[in-house]
């Protein structure tokens, strides 16, 4: 395994993106706002975490909304690796929950995602900061996964990898995680799927269509067709009442 190479690529990626060595990565924001990679989160019934597609210089990542939000973040980082480093590939389906995948590039993508989201050094630093040398408890694990915004499974895996907990501890800490997180006062969204949100699209797609229309490069008919094709039917046919009115924010904003 190209362990050192992938670890370096993850560290280098964090540096290029301007993410501090101990900061958590908002991977959806990175993809959408920095890398300009479109993201669609939608329910997929099959046994996959997500897939990516590339057409010339345009990239798209589709993520399975049926998996926990923590798992979705990992999938996004995994697919990001394929788009960024698997240059010869135009598309790929990635299976779910298979950390020991038989394919080398899948293992590399998993390693990259783990190191991008939870680098060894950052994990070590946060453990030390919280525990000051005492043994890790389940509460600490829940704190760490919420800090890095990753699934419980991944956090346990990472902690075992760096030798912070044993396999026996992993076994003991696997169950009832949502209940335990709730008891500690954490928002449990990280552990739940996002099916109830419907299909979420993060892309410049609608803005590009609007710009083309406003600059007279396409007809209104084509604009409608593009929006419908792209899953933006609500822009054309949605209730506009909620969109009207003024923003309810500071009245004294001018004084800032």
């Amino acid at each position, binding site marked *: 395994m190209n362990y050192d190479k992938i670890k370096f690529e993850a560290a280098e990626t964090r540096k290029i993106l301007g993410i501090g060595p101990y900061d958590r990565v908002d991977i959806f924001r990175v993809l959408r706002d920095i890398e300009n990679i479109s993201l669609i989160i*939608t329910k997929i019934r099959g046994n996959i975490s997500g897939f990516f597609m590339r057409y010339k210089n345009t990239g798209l990542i589709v993520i399975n909304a049926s998996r926990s939000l923590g798992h979705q973040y990992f999938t996004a980082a995994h697919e990001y690796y394929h788009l960024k480093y698997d240059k010869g590939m135009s598309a790929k389906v990635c299976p779910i929950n298979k950390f020991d995948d038989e394919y080398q590039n899948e293992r590399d993508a998993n390693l990259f995602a783990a190191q991008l989201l939870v680098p060894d050094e950052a994990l070590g630093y946060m453990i030390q900061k919280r525990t000051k040398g005492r043994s890790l408890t389940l509460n600490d694990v829940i704190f760490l996964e919420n800090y890095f915004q990753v699934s419980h499974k991944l956090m346990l895996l990472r902690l075992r990898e760096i030798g912070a907990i044993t396999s026996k501890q992993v076994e003991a800490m696997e169950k009832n995680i949502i209940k335990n997180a709730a008891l500690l006062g954490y928002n449990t969204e990280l552990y739940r799927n996002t099916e109830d949100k419907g299909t979420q699209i993060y892309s410049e797609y609608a803005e590009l269509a609007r710009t083309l229309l406003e600059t007279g490069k396409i007809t209104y008919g084509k604009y409608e067709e593009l929006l419908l094709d792209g899953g933006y039917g609500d822009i054309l046919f949605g209730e506009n009442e909620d969109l009207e009115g003024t923003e309810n924010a500071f009245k004294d904003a001018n004084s800032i």
Partner: protein
Amino acid sequence: MDNSIFKNIGKKLQEARNKNGLTQEQVAKVLGINKVQLSYFENGAREINISLLQKLANLYGYSVEYFLGNEEINEPDIQIAFRAGDFIEEDLKIVSFAKTFLRNLHEMKSLLGR
């Protein structure tokens, strides 16, 4: 219309389906047609309507023009290598949607010179 046109379209349809690793049965289910009909289209034995051709193009990740044109356009592929158990038929609609989304996105960027 000249029968060779349908044969040419059919040949390309079959190639595109094979490259995507899909069976006639899977594709027919997604499109809501029967397998025999699809087989006729792939053999060039029946005329295919443009709306169905568009759906197939979306699913396979090609433009409609690719299937209609005579010349061998070297289209960049947006093919997904399916492994057994990856998707169920219902999900192929999502794949098709994603391919259309990506193709449109790219074309819009090109129109704006980005």
